[in-house]
């Protein structure tokens, strides 16, 4: 099978379990809607030699790898017709480490990872959290609700740096796919937080520029109203078959600490999957 003309590929983090299942379903939706190929990657954790058990034990990696191969084959079999996909079994010290190595080696343009609502209200799971703090490509978080096909793109913008990058990414995706783009403006939220007038005008100009690029029928602006991120996000009427793009620096003051909880909160409140686009993109 030849890769699609655009040559875009997404790494889908599969683990053989529930999280992997969610990532796989979202990966299939992205592949169908955005015309990309999938690399389904399952990372086997290798033992730390310093974790030597007492008394001595056998090497379990052969049997685990065999079962993991089965999970991967099953996963490929479940993907819808027409999705071009390959699968890879990799070995690394940790799952995020292996995923990022795969992203680099395969030249993937995004990594899709399951992040189900767990018992921890601010958690997205250790794998997703580590990826959010270190991935050089967008991280797409598959929550509990995953659309079958994408028909709408959302992009969240505010006054903090990074709006330009994520808007450009979103506009490019909208152009490529022909999907309508909804700009979710969080300017009101920023104004409450004391963002200055000039910064807000700059963002408005950016949005206008994007509107010219796409045409006003394909771009709409929706205002997030409320005192908190949760309220602002809840005030918007989301199409269930959408995908929200978020710039990581836009939301994260100190990117290391803010990103995980914010992404998790958005995941909780936004009824669509979230793609977190790193600051440095473009």
């Amino acid at each position, binding site marked *: 099978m030849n890769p699609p003309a655009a040559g875009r590929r997404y790494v889908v983090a599969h683990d*053989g379990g529930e999280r992997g299942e969610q990532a796989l379903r979202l990966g299939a939706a992205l592949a169908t809607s955005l015309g990309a190929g999938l690399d389904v990657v399952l990372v086997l*954790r290798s033992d730390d030699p*310093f974790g030597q058990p007492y008394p001595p034990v056998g*090497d379990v990696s052969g049997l685990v790898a065999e079962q993991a*191969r089965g999970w991967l084959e099953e996963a490929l079999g479940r993907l819808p017709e027409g999705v071009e996909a390959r699968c890879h079994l990799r070995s690394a010290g940790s799952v995020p480490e292996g995923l990022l*190595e795969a992203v680099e080696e395969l030249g993937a343009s995004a990594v899709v990872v399951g992040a189900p609502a767990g018992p921890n209200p601010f958690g997205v799971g250790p794998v997703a959290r580590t990826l959010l703090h270190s991935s050089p490509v967008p991280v797409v978080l598959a929550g509990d609700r995953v659309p079958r096909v994408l028909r709408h793109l959302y992009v969240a913008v505010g006054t903090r740096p990074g709006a330009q990058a994520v808007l450009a990414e979103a506009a490019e995706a909208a152009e490529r796919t022909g999907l309508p783009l909804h700009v979710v403006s969080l300017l009101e939220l920023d104004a409450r937080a004391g963002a200055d007038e000039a910064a807000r005008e700059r963002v408005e100009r950016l949005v206008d520029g994007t509107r010219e690029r796409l045409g006003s029928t394909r771009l709409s602006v929706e205002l997030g109203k409320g005192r908190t991120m949760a309220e602002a996000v809840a005030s918007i009427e989301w199409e269930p078959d959408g995908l929200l793009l978020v710039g990581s620096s836009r939301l994260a003051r100190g990117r290391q600490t803010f990103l995980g909880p914010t992404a998790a909160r958005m995941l909780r409140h936004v009824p669509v999957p979230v793609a977190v686009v790193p600051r440095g993109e473009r």
Partner: protein
Amino acid sequence: MEPAVEGRSAKGLGTGRVGLLGAVVIGVSTIAPAYALTGTLGPTASAVGEQMPAIFLVGFVPMLLVAFGYRALNSAMPDSGTTFTWSSRAFGPWIGWMGGWGLLAATVLVLSNLAGIAVDFLYLMLAQVTGDESVADLAANVPVNIATCLVFMALACWVAYRGLETTKAVQYVLVGFQLVVLVWFCVAAFARVAAGDAPGGLALSAGWFDPLAVDSFSAFAAGVSLSVFVYWGWDVVLTMNEETQGSRTTPGRAALATIVVIVVLYLTVAVAVLSYTGTGEDGLGLGGGDQENVFAVLAGPVMGPAAVLLSLSVLASSAASLQSTFLSPARTMLAMGHYGALPREYARVTPRFQSPGYATVAAGVIASVFYVVMRILSEDVLWDTITALGMMVCFYYGVTALACVWYFRGTWKGRPRHFLSTGLAPGLGGVLLLVFFVQTSVDSTDPSYGSGSQVGGVGLVFLLGVGVLALGGVVMAVQRVRRPAFFRGETLAVGRSSTDGPEGADGTGAPVGGAPGPRTETTREGVPE
């Protein structure tokens, strides 16, 4: 589509290269010295008396011999099932099944012993911290003891289920702390002997190092069975070859350095305890029944206020070992489930944690039930489990060593070194271990054997050792009826190493289902001959 494993190392171990010091730390950690010593010194001294240091020297020999066999089998057939898989390949399903059962029994025994030791030291440490002596007595209260033990078991099982591992830093701290505290203990004991305020106060004698001075072969066999247990796990140092950094000399040096550290440490502690307490049955003497947990009794008198450090060190050592010990039965049950020797559920790997979840929980449940029954049956449960454990390790290490000889037979012509490491050494070691096993089994029918616990006129140690093996035979017969494929050799065929290479590179050497995974590929390039 069959995806091949990609990635940096593409095999089980090997995320971090290990240097010489690291290899020694790993080697020492795999024998859990503080834990092993506290449980073994009393029973060993009561078996062989003043010749305890000699027995610790002698006991190392069969372990060293067998370790060569382990290394050869491990590079020829890396597999989750170790003894089970190897002896099935060499001797066929029946002996293989019993070998696997021996390993399971030994690990379940050690789980219950570890948990029991951890409980003792938890309350001892609490007593030392609070200064309230009565807290330490809680460990002797059967319901409290059982409840605490089950909590420990559940925690350790959970950690193993989640696939969490101790890391490099933790391992360095644990091993360093154990060594420092044990040396401190020895120095303090010698100082008290020199000052004349030790209850035993024996002067060091050359006769302590003379194994021939042991009264009888029975006593000798019992002592060696126990010292086999204290060296249990040491063979990992030899199989770590591929992990070690840089040159070809590092693994050899690491193994040698670990041997020196362990043997010197054991001898020093044995001599220190012996000269401090003597071997009498009264008071603190090593022959008395109170000595099933030596450091718990001696810490206070020898180290004074610093005794809390010893308690902490043994508690940390046994708690850390407790969680890693769950891996051993779980991985063997995983392999047995995989090859159809046990129900299919045992082969289930939990996707999220990549650990044998079902088998881990099963091991936890069996070990807990076993501990509860033992605690109720025996007053000296630690003593009896340690003694039975030594027997069980002799049994399954013996079977494994002979499996090595049988598997590699016919590959020795014109290769004297290969013959030494896969034929003569494991053969001799295996025969020795099985002789000690048989002798100890026969002796342990005596109701006064070990701690003197008995059921219906038969020693509890015999019931634990031989009885559990016989139970294995029954379970095996049931499995034979339910799952005949394994017993017909359909899932794990009998085979032998081919003459043109000891690594089984022609394909006949690799187990049928499991091993052609990530590990095999690297092994083929990386095994030094």
